[in-house]
């Protein structure tokens, strides 16, 4: 029973973690909450759906179809996020801290409505490139092929992100910008380029999560991003917003909380969001900067 909950918690947490990374990467550099991130992941899933509709023959089942969905979802979401940054946030960056936040809320509403009005106000079936079957694990627990793919994809993307952030030139520039944007400029770093790359990467991770989330429901909808977006944002805060490891940790913790609440508490399935968020509030009361959030070195 517990093994099963762990499997379910991991699969759900992996999706939250991917989305939370998008919030935390952006926050790390700009101290800004990208409220449009939920819509970016929703549009990632629609882009994948669009590709599947455009080339239906190629989208039966199989790894190639799966890769195609990911590629479309990630590229579209990454590009969209970078585009939003360029036109809705960058011009406001110097104005005030609040202006880009308001702009983000505006973008979020516009994108939701655009899909609602021009694409569909209903759920739309999402392709299922994986043959669904249950794989038995030890202790009587099972993992579905979909959960396995979700976990594998999330872990690969996290490993990739880790490599980029720790080892590559752009990754080091991202970390330098997160430490001190102005000082990074003095080192010859074009902050605009780094910020655009950060939005692209965060958006692409969100796009992957959007595809995984839609696959697990078998459908997508104009408001698909809202709930996982809100939860992943909370997960990022729980882990310590701005901290990459914290986002992953927070995502998994939130996934576990929900699954455990649903599994062990009477009527837990209905109460799981309430329980999960109550725990979050408690943790934040004890640790306001989140689990791994550090007090940043004082800047002069």
């Amino acid at each position: 029973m517990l093994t099963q909950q762990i499997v379910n918690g991991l699969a759900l947490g992996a999706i939250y973690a991917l989305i939370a990374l998008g919030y935390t990467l952006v926050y790390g550099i700009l101290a800004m909450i990208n409220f449009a991130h939920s819509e970016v992941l929703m549009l990632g899933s629609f882009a994948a759906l669009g590709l599947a509709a455009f080339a239906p023959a190629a989208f039966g089942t199989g790894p190639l179809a799966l890769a195609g969905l990911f590629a479309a979802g990630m590229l579209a979401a990454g590009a969209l996020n970078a585009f939003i940054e360029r036109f809705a946030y960058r011009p406001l960056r110097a104005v005030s801290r609040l202006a880009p936040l308001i702009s983000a809320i505006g973008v979020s509403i516009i994108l939701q409505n655009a899909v609602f009005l021009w694409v569909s106000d209903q759920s739309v079936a999402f392709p299922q490139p994986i043959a669904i079957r249950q794989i038995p694990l030890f202790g009587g627990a099972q993992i579905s092929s979909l959960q396995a793919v979700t976990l594998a994809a999330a872990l690969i993307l996290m490993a990739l992100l880790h490599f980029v952030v720790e080892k590559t030139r752009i990754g080091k520039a991202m970390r330098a910008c997160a430490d001190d944007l102005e000082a990074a400029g003095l080192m010859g770093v074009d902050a605009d380029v780094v910020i655009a790359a950060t939005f692209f990467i965060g958006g692409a991770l969100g796009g992957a999560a959007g595809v995984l989330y839609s696959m697990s429901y078998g459908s997508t909808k104009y408001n698909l991003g809202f709930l996982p977006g809100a939860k992943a944002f909370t997960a990022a805060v729980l882990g310590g917003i701005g901290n990459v490891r914290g986002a992953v940790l927070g995502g998994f913790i939130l996934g576990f909380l929900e699954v455990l609440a649903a599994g062990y508490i009477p009527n837990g399935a209905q109460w799981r969001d309430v329980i999960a968020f109550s725990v979050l509030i408690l943790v934040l009361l004890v640790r306001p900067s989140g689990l791994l959030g550090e007090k940043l070195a004082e800047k002069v």
Partner: protein
Amino acid sequence: MSGGAMLSLDGVHAVYGRKIRALRGVSLEVRAGEVVALIGNNGAGKTTLMKTIAGLLAPEKGRVTFQGRALSGLPPHEVMRMGLSLVPEGRRIFPRLTVMENLEMGAYSRAHGAELAREYEHVFTLFPVLGRRRAQLGGTLSGGEQQMLAMGRALMAAPKLLMLDEPSMGLAPVVVDKIFEIIARINQEGVTVLLVEQNARRALKAAARAYVLETGEIVSAGDSASLLRDPAVQKAYLGL
């Protein structure tokens, strides 16, 4: 304007917001190979001047020229690529990057290769402590080590002109000696230096020429020896 000026400012004004006028028509020049000091009290506008040259602040009026090219309006990453590096006030090293990564960021604008390997060696020769602490996070260094890292980081870009904003601030006298020793040494190696200091006596001894800034205006200028003897300067800045 003499033909030999490497950096020149001509009637530069700078404002914060709409009201605070921090620079009021500053003109000065730095010639290739010199060490020039800029002294002035708290709030005189020294940091503002450095920021304006480095491109962190756009001048409201006036011209900044470096090696014959106008800098005014260029963003910091383009200014530094022309060979003009600023070691900012408060050091501003990257606290969550290792010492080595901080230095790598200093070399961000340059092609990699053998030349760069020599640069690391050079920085580690100037500041052996950085070599010993290369895997440590920048934020965990002592104040003096952070200042050395900030200078080493700037040198990684092989600047033609190095601007230092209060490099001795908050440091023990021995460390201050070391910092000034390094300034003299890199100048001998061909780097032109513009030095901002509140420690006017040290600055005037390190520099051949100096400017005195008061509430956003240059109030006197000349070679350091005569400024050291100037009664007004003695009274205001040397505590005599």
